[in-house]
């Protein structure tokens, strides 16, 4: 059981669960490709094929013989480690008077918590915008004056800083790049500029149909609880603070979490001295663990129609999960994907959708080459009237590849191209250096780079077919259609394809207000009064003074916990002794027992099959948050000194309009949004951001009165792809509880 799961279980009993201003996309039971009902077939009235003008010709140009795949002969590669732990590799190449530095930091968008979505990219943008020694203009002038390039870019898996100059100006890179990495100053004025540029980029995406479709398909595939499903927005960008950039940089930009590649015309002994001096100020520091993300099950077929009126063309994306870079099916997947859509004009998709159908300018398929499993996406577009017909062609090709794999000839062609072209991809010294660093990032070796063509060449037709069969999932995928909704929707309806429809300018994925309710610095007194009034009514409905007078509480319950694709039984007992003692006992799958407790000022402890230990200090804030949002007590929070309350616009949830009130603690550390039933006045849901930034949604149902207090007996909680569904079977109000219950056991 993961730490998140435990926290979630705790949250669940404590409570319960979710609401949902955002209903998940509908699960679509059938679609062309899922069975044969809607699959487009050649019409019977097709005119007979024209005579083949090339038949019988003896002078046709034929394909030349292909040489078998050969390993790449790598130049000598030198590796060394600087005193501070920074690993360096050097690819020496003196053909041109050019030197390149590529520094990879093992942190990227994949490591961003939702609450700080965009922090990796904004941090990278700011690195060339000021150091302790130079402002942005001075940096720009320095690099521009030698005609060089210096860039910082946050990718999904890593952040890359690169600097290239002519050899005679190499000292510029050797000064600037270490300075950017170790001494960035994050000037506020440059943060403003960078945010503005990012906001414009996001807005521009609304006019850029391919980019917009790409963002939607990732969100539809991975959902709102997975980092790959999150897309930045003006709201996310604007809320990032300088302090968050500084923290991000301090946390991740440490020598042990980086790798430097130097390529080109260098003298290695001198380079070692220069680098040691240049990075001397970069002190060793602990390397943080990277967060793990659990892919949610796709759960069937989902179709999202993104309505952009008056478009003459529909962007089509079909996506499902891909394979990890170290998956044994990686090379076989390269091969079948080449045959399907990775091989440009040689691929089936191009042949069928473009060359035969004339429906598009381009059709392709690709999968992410990441350490973790990423996406597999088919990309094409067509005129609006051909939307569903083109989608059907694509799905038919996916189904065919899944069922039969590539042909012998396709496998040969794929190997010839993938293996043969590899040497061109790593022929430049900087290309090779980049490939070596990426291999390191993915836990692969130098030999992997050298042997890539051979490894591709070893794939058999059977292996490629088996990989296609197991990787492609024709009953679990997502489809995004971006175009003129009023003209596409009837096509989908006529084909019997269920779909959800969203506006093109609607936010994609979770947004700040939903994930982490923002704390207004000044609250409109009228809204504050309205919020207090609603919460007073909610407290009265719950039990009023009985709740205020509550001294202790013990609850037991049981239910299911779903995480990482598995569901297990859980039994929970939660004991509260106010104001500051809490204990949770959890039995998982009727086998494993885990207990936690907070014993006031004495701290906390946990006991699991692994033993008894103090709760790490890092977990205490999260437990404090859980206590603050406890559903039996959260209605009391507005009465705490300095707490801020504001009424928000009512929201429609599951067809019902609910009152919404946001409450923030005096120190600003905790904020939650409470959803109240206008009829019963009861709290039916709340949502807040937990420590990692993941949104937690709790939903409360089946209220029953116990000792004058109305207590929800069904609690469903979801966060970061994990869901707990707990039914409370016993509640004791103010039972006699010994304080020793919370004390750390001796063994």
């Amino acid at each position, binding site marked *: 059981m993961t730490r998140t799961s435990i926290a979630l279980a705790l949250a669940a009993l404590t409570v319960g669960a979710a609401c949902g201003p955002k209903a998940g996309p509908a699960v679509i039971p059938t679609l062309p490709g899922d069975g044969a009902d809607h699959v487009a077939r050649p019409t019977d009235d097709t005119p007979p094929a*024209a005579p083949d*003008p*090339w038949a019988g*010709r003896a002078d*046709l*140009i034929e*394909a*030349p013989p*292909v*040489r078998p795949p050969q390993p790449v002969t790598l130049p000598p590669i030198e590796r060394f480690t600087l005193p501070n732990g920074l690993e360096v590799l050097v690819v020496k190449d003196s*053909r*041109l008077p050019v030197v390149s530095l590529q520094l990879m930091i093992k942190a990227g968008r994949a490591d961003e918590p939702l609450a700080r979505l965009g922090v990796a990219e904004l941090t990278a943008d700011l690195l*060339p915008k000021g150091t302790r020694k130079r402002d942005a*203009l001075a*940096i*720009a002038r320095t*690099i*521009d*004056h030698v*005609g060089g390039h210096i860039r910082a870019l946050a990718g999904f898996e890593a952040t890359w800083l690169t600097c290239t100059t002519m050899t005679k*100006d190499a000292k510029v890179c050797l000064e600037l790049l270490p300075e950017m990495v170790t001494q960035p100053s994050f000037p506020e*004025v440059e943060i*403003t*500029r960078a945010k*503005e*540029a990012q*906001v*414009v980029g996001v*807005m*521009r*995406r*609304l*006019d*850029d*149909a*391919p980019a917009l479709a790409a963002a939607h398909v990732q969100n539809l595939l991975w959902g709102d609880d997975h980092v790959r499903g999150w897309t930045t927005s003006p709201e996310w960008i604007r809320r990032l603070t300088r302090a968050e950039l500084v923290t991000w940089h301090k946390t991740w930009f440490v020598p042990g979490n980086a790798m430097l590649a130097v390529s080109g015309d260098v003298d290695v002994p001198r380079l070692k001295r220069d680098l040691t001096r240049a990075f001397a100020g970069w002190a060793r520091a602990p390397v943080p663990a990277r967060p793990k993300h659990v892919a949610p099950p796709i759960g069937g077929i989902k179709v999202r129609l993104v309505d952009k009126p008056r478009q003459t*063309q529909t962007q089509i994306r079909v996506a499902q999960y891909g394979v990890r870079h170290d998956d044994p099916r990686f090379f076989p997947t390269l091969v079948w994907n080449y045959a399907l859509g990775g*091989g*440009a*004009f*040689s691929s089936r998709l191009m042949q069928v959708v473009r*060359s*035969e*159908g*004339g*429906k*598009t*300018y381009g059709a392709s398929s690709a999968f992410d080459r990441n350490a973790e499993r990423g996406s597999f996406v088919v990309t094409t577009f*067509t*005129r609006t009237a051909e939307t569903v017909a083109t989608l059907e062609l694509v799905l038919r090709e996916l189904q065919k590849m899944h069922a039969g794999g590539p042909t012998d000839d396709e496998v040969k*062609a794929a190997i*010839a*191209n993938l293996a*043969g*072209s*590899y*040497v*061109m991809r790593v*022929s*430049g010294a900087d290309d090779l250096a980049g490939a070596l660093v990426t291999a390191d990032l993915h836990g692969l070796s130098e030999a992997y780079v050298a042997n890539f063509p051979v490894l591709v060449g070893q794939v058999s037709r059977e292996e490629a077919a088996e990989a296609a069969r197991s990787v492609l999932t024709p009953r679990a995928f997502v489809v995004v259609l971006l175009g003129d909704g009023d003209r596409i929707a009837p096509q989908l309806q006529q084909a019997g394809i269920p779909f959800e429809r969203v506006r093109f300018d609607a936010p994609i994925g979770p947004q700040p207000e939903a994930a982490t309710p923002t704390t207004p610095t000044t609250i409109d007194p009228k809204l504050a009064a309205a919020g207090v009034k609603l919460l007073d009514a909610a407290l009265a409905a719950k039990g009023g003074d009985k709740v205020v007078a509550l001294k202790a509480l013990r609850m037991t319950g049981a239910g299911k916990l779903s995480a990482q694709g598995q569901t297990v039984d859980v039994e929970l007992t939660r004991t509260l002794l106010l104001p500051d003692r809490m204990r949770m006992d959890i039995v998982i799958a009727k086998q494993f027992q885990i207990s936690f407790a907070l014993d006031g000022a004495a701290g906390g402890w946990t006991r699991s099959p692994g033993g008894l230990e103090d709760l790490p200090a890092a977990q205490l804030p999260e437990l404090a948050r859980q206590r603050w949002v406890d559903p039996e007590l959260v209605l009391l929070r507005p009465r705490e000194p300095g707490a801020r309350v504001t009424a928000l616009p009512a929201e429609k949830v599951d067809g019902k309009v609910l009152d919404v009130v946001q409450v923030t603690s005096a120190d600003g550390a905790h904020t939650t949004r409470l959803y109240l039933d206008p009829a019963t006045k009861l709290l039916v849901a709340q949502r807040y951001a937990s420590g990692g930034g993941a949104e937690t949604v709790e939903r409360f149902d089946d209220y029953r009165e116990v000792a004058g207090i109305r207590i929800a007996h069904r609690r469903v909680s979801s966060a970061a792809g994990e869901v707990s569904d707990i039914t409370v079977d016993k509640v004791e109000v103010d039972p006699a509880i010994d304080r020793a219950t919370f004390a750390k056991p001796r063994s």
Partner: protein
Amino acid sequence: MKLLLPVTAVAALLGGAALATAQPAAPPAPRPRASTPAGLKLPQLETFTLENGLRGVFLRHDAAPVVAVEVWYRVGAKDEARDRRGSAHMFEHIMFKGTKRVRPEAHARFVNGVGGQANAHTSEDATAYLQVVPAEYLDFVLELEAERMRNLRFDPATIATEREVVKEEIRQQENDPVSKGLLRFLEIAFTRHPYAWTAGGTIADLDRTTPADLEAFYNTYYQPGNALLVVVGQTTLAEVKASAEKHFGPIPAAAPPPRPADATPEPPQTEKRREVVEAGQIGIVFAGWKIPEARAQDIYALQVLSLVLGTGESARLRQRIRTIDPKTKQPLGVEAAAPILVREHPGLFLALGVYRDAAAGAAVEGAIFDELARIASKPPTADELRKAKNQILAGFVFGLDSPLGLAEQIGQSWILTGDPTQWLRDLDELEKVTPADLARVTRTYLTPERATVVVVPPRSAP
């Protein structure tokens, strides 16, 4: 297959994929320039001409055991009839759709099958076909290129299908306000010359273009005397010449093709033209001025001016547009550039500003003209000039690493100046440019009354 539209810089400004139809493979520098640094060994080009008029250029390059092979035809959008716009670009497609001795799609499949890549691009002035393959397939690729130079098939059904494909390419532009704004800009800037349209063409013209029209176009322009063969890579001049002679040699010479654009020169512009077009999500000001043809001496100074204004983070116009307004605490705009579109015939100098708030549009436009006025009245500093020249030099050296990039340079040089080796000699000319030259060309060409401005306003701030 890519259209080389004059919007590369805009695409880069807006984030790469911004303009779906405008993503040329090559960087935006429309004309290669470089200075000769001490100690830098310049590439040694070797040239030859076959009896039928086909010119060849070879450059030895040993970075990898590969060759880049390009065939450039001096035919582009400006050679099209006004009611057949898009014809040149159609060939970029149908040249892969079968010849007498090569089945449809087989050309690209053969090249891919030996580990190579094949592509093509079309611009206002040229159409180019490119391959990169392992060096031992040089002769095979030359055979394929010679085959499609004269043996293309014009099957009506194939052309009908490919026409639909090209229409989808055009529709990508229709759905993008920035692309539409730029196309409108060209229509306004050029009243007579065919630079008023791009290689994309129009759906209406494509529908009226028959297979017979295309075949006539092919027979006119796809001739050895109108082409340049470029080979860069790990082979020898002897092998290149032998293969060229073997495969292209038997093709008969043809009459020089007509140059309809010569008859429709653009008249001098005497007053500012300005139009506000359909709004986009963000605002962009396109300002542009006609400049001389590629062979003109003033192009060197204009090239340097383009860098001073818009290349590098510290460039004048980029700094100006991104200055924080003390009142709003926000920058005027978010990005700017000053690309120069050097063409075989008189081309364009562009200045662009990208912004978000509608209220900032006038200020962005004003800043562009103000920066030019400053240079017209006071030449840039020697330091700025040195920086621009260093940028050109470094860009030149960085480009020497790529066989395909070098082949592109050679082809472009031939299209623009008639000489595939001219780009190497440009270095010395560039070095002669002075600050006073920049002020002079600004006063001569980039004046308010010669300007064309198109504004794509932003819809609204979020």
